[in-house]
Each structure stands twice: as structure tokens, then as C-alpha cells.
């Protein structure tokens, strides 16, 4: 598939689960394609969000965010996320790391909810009206019912994949497997498409199974500016630039013109080209 074919499959109003974690293995090339399309009113589901969520809020593509965390880790807060939260511009629902996983897992297990103690005695339960307190049917113990999260689409980026849709993840897996299984349609970008024979050499690092994927796109550096272990680390210099350009509308338009409203190969040229990226980011 191509990035454009993926985006054509995602209508406005879709619920989109995004893999990766803050500055690690975010499907940024797919996110940018989504951002430059006319798609609106996306409902995002992220466990640990970063530039993915922030960029889509910045381009006005989002109407709701379900999240356990959105931030830029060592670089600080996510600027568009922060602004939108403070201006109450979109709908936000604060979940927690495990409850996002449990919500996806409930969909996979085809049950309407999963029970947990997480969230009890915290204010997450007060502000998140999707959760419900209930008593367990055996002993009446008080628990939290985490409702099933049902993404229409999952977007993930992996190291390698075969053309059939099996994917290899070499670094941390984050919640990508859960996203891929829970979504009705999963689109996976990868650093490189390899043969199915070669893929099988990766054993248990083949974490994404083709029965759970809809399409694969080869997009080298497709996680940039986030990292993709062990191929490249996060580009903190580019992310600092992103943060600077998020300070006001003019600067943001400049960033968007330069890096979002362009195709994946020109994007890489504007980073100085692959050689420069390698020199800066290859570990």
C-alpha cells in the first residue's frame, strides 16, 4: 500500500488507536499523512502519547483524545495538547496506562469490560466518566469496570514486515500488539519490507501477525522524529525545533508547510537527507 491509500481508508470521525510510546516508534509518517489530509474529528486512543497526538491536535484533525499520558518526556510538555486542554478546545478523557491496555484487551476478548483495582482512591475515577465502579459478583469487592475501547483503525510502525502483514518489533513493543488486535483495520508502516522467509528468522520478535493487519507500507525513517530501536534514536534536535515552532500560529504554519504538507521522501530531504540522519541518529 501507499500512505495515501491508508489515509483514504480513514474517514472523518474515525476512532484511531496509535502505537508506540511518547518518543519511541510512533508511526509519524502515517500521522503526517493523516494530518495533511482533509480528515477531521478524529477520536484518538493512545496509551503514552507524544508528537503523534500533539501534531494531529496542531493541525486541527482531532475532536477527542483518550490517553494515559501525552508529553515529550525529557523535553517537557506537549504544546498543542497542553493548549487544547487549558482552552478546553476538545474533549479529553484521562485513562491510565493499564486501563488503556485493558480497554483494548476487552475488545480483543469480546467482553464489554475488564475489571481492575487501578484508579480506586484516585481522581481519575472522578473525571473519567467512562469508567464505572461495580461490585464483583462473588464477594462484592469494589472494582473499576474498564469499558472496551473499540478503535476503527490502528496505526503502528515496526522495524520490518513481510508483504503479507507480519511485523517484526526489535525494541520495546509498547501497546502495538494490543492496538493491532483490537482495531477493525490495522495499518502498519515499516522500515523495510523483507521476505517471509527472512522474517521467520526473527522468531518471537515477530510480534504482529498478519491475520490482524489490513495493509503494510514501506516507510524508511517512518517513526522520525521519534526513535526506532535499534535503527535510530529519537531526533531531539528536530523535536526542539518542533516545540519552538509550536509557540505561535505563524511559526506553526511554517513548520507544517515544511514538514507536514510534503511527501515522505521530501520530508527526509528536508531533514538533510538520509546520510545526515544516519550520522545524527544511527546508534
Amino acid at each position, binding site marked *: 500500500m501507499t500512505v495515501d491509500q491508508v489515509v483514504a481508508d480513514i474517514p472523518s470521525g474515525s476512532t484511531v488507536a496509535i502505537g508506540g*510510546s511518547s*518518543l*519511541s516508534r510512533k508511526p509519524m509518517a502515517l500521522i503526517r499523512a493523516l494530518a495533511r489530509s482533509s480528515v477531521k474529528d478524529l477520536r484518538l486512543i493512545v*496509551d*503514552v502519547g507524544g508528537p503523534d497526538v500533539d501534531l494531529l491536535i496542531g493541525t486541527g484533525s482531532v475532536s477527542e483524545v483518550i*490517553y*494515559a*499520558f*501525552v*508529553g515529550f518526556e*525529557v523535553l517537557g*510538555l*506537549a504544546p498543542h*495538547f*497542553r493548549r487544547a*486542554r*487549558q482552552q*478546553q478546545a476538545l474533549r479529553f478523557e*484521562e485513562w*491510565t*496506562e*493499564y*486501563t488503556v*491496555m485493558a480497554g483494548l484487551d476487552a475488545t480483543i476478548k469480546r467482553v464489554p469490560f475488564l475489571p481492575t*483495582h*487501578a*484508579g*480506586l*482512591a*484516585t*481522581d*481519575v475515577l*472522578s*473525571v473519567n466518566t467512562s469508567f464505572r465502579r461495580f461490585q464483583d459478583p462473588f464477594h462484592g469487592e*469494589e472494582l473499576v469496570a474498564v469499558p472496551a475501547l473499540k478503535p476503527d483503525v490502528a496505526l503502528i510502525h515496526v522495524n520490518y514486515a513481510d508483504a503479507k502483514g507480519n511485523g517484526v518489533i*526489535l*525494541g*520495546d*513493543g*509498547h*501497546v502495538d*500488539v494490543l492496538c493491532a488486535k483490537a482495531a477493525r483495520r490495522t495499518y502498519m508502516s515499516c522500515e523495510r519490507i523483507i521476505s517471509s522467509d527472512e522474517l521467520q528468522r526473527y522468531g518471537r520478535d515477530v510480534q504482529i501477525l498478519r491475520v490482524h493487519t489490513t495493509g503494510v507500507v514501506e516507510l524508511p525513517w517512518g517513526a522520525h522524529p521519534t*526513535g526506532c*530501536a*535499534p535503527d535510530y*534514536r*529519537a531526533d*531531539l*534536535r528536530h523535536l526542539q525545533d518542533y516545540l519552538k515552532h509550536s509557540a505561535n500560529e505563524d511559526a506553526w504554519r511554517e513548520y507544517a508547510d515544511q514538514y507536514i504538507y510534503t511527501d515522505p521522501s521530501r520530508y527526509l530531504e528536508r531533514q538533510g537527507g538520509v546520510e545526515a540522519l544516519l550520522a545524527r541518529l*544511527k*546508534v
Partner: protein
Amino acid sequence: MPLDERYALDEFLITTMARQFSGEVMVSSVTAFGALAALLAKARYAPDLAVLATPESGMEVTPMPTLSLGQFLTDAQRGIPLTMEEIFDAIFTDHFRIWINPAQIDRHGNTNISVIGDWHQPKVAMVGSRGIPEDTSHLSQIFYYVLTHSRRTVVEQVDFRSGAGTGPDRDATLGAHGAPSVLVTDLGVFDFTGPGGTMAVRSLHPGVTLEEVQEKSGFEIHAPGSIPVTDPPTEEDVQIIRDADPLEVRKLELLSGPEAAERFVSIYERERQALHAAWPRLGKLG
């Protein structure tokens, strides 16, 4: 606290944190302070720790304080790759420890990383509660540290409870599950053994007075009649920390503004080389 030429504040605090660990548990390295505390503890105080390179990466590795290379360490050292599911199973079965650095902590050990002000109308929207609700509802030991003990960080009541503290709400819903156990700040070590599970002084760092602590806290912290002085690091503690963090990533956590930014850039440029020097095998992987 007054500086001592034998150690810096960061080394003092990291050592204090390291000494809280015990037993055979996974330890996540989510900040430089946490990573170094785990590493030092493993070397000197709690040899059975199973240390992770990042919140999620391989177990049984030597964490290296880093801005962006956590996952790569697993590769370099091999390690045992884990999944998020395994991390949470370790939390639920109480085989996990972590040092959490909240924006606010209150009298009852409730902690906040989500929002300053009202959640629905935030003054400052921070990051969201992440996995702190899970940690605080399941772990029998929860470790907090705050690098600037002040009325903004040690508060009467947090604006938002990301992490569950002590008190009736916990007693009613979590029972024996979890509870905040220790807070280390730049002034002292605190626990929650005061009346009704409130914060109490366990020890104060050398040269710190109770008056200073009370003045810099948003509420009166319970204090015993005689307050011990926190033990300083040994020479060996300090050496282990310095060797493990040649880039001095730990210093970043104590800095802010332009000085931090400059140091940040320099560390980022140099961290690949440091990684390759520490783990020569890595250079050959590409």
C-alpha cells in the same frame, strides 16, 4: 543542605534512594535518578534486584542514564526483553519498584502529575496520570522523590490525585493493597507513619533544620522528638554513581533554564559515543 566536597547533592540523594531498595524485585529506570539509584542499590545494597534499562526494556541490564538510548541498552547488553504486559503483571503481583517524581505530593501521600488547578479547567495541563494509579493501588512499597522541597511541591492537598495516598478512601477500596512508603526530598527522608497515615520526618539531611522543612512545606509535617540525620554516601557510593553516569545526565534534573538547555544539547550529542565506549559490542551491531 550545605554542600560537602566529597559528594554533590545529586549523589547524596541518589545514594539515599538506593538504600531504600530490598529483595528480588524488578526496578524500572524511568529517570536518571531512578536509574542510578537502582544501579547503585544492585551493586551495594540489594544485589537481587532485577534492573530494567527503561520503563519497559530488558531485565538484568546495567541502566545508563540517557536522554534517548534506553531501549538501545537492551540491545547492547542483550538483557531479557519484556513486554508491557509483563511489567504490569509484575506490578499487580508486587514484584516491581519504581522511583516516581511527582509534581505535587500531599500530607497523605497523594501525588499529582496530571494537572495544576481544576482538571476540567486546567491552569497547567501536564501529562496525565500514566501508570501511577496502577502502581499506587498494587505495590506494597512506593517510592517518591522531589528535588525541590517547597510549598509548591509539598502541599496540603494535591490538585488532582494521580496516585493514591493513605486515608479513608484507600482503606475503603484498596484495603491492604499498596501505600506510599517513602519520600526523599532535597531536605530529608519522610514516610507516612504520622497520625492517620500522614507524612512524618524519618531523617533530615546534614545541616537541614526542622524549621526549614516546615517553612518550605504546605502543611505541618509530623516529627518525632529526636530526628536522625540522613547517612551520607560513602566514597564507594559516589564513585559508582560517577562511573555509571560519565555524561552527568543526573545533573539535568537539578537544573533549569538556559544552563539546562546547553547541558542537554551537549549530552545528547555525546551519548552515542558514551554508549559505545561502555558497550563496545554495540558499535558492531549496525
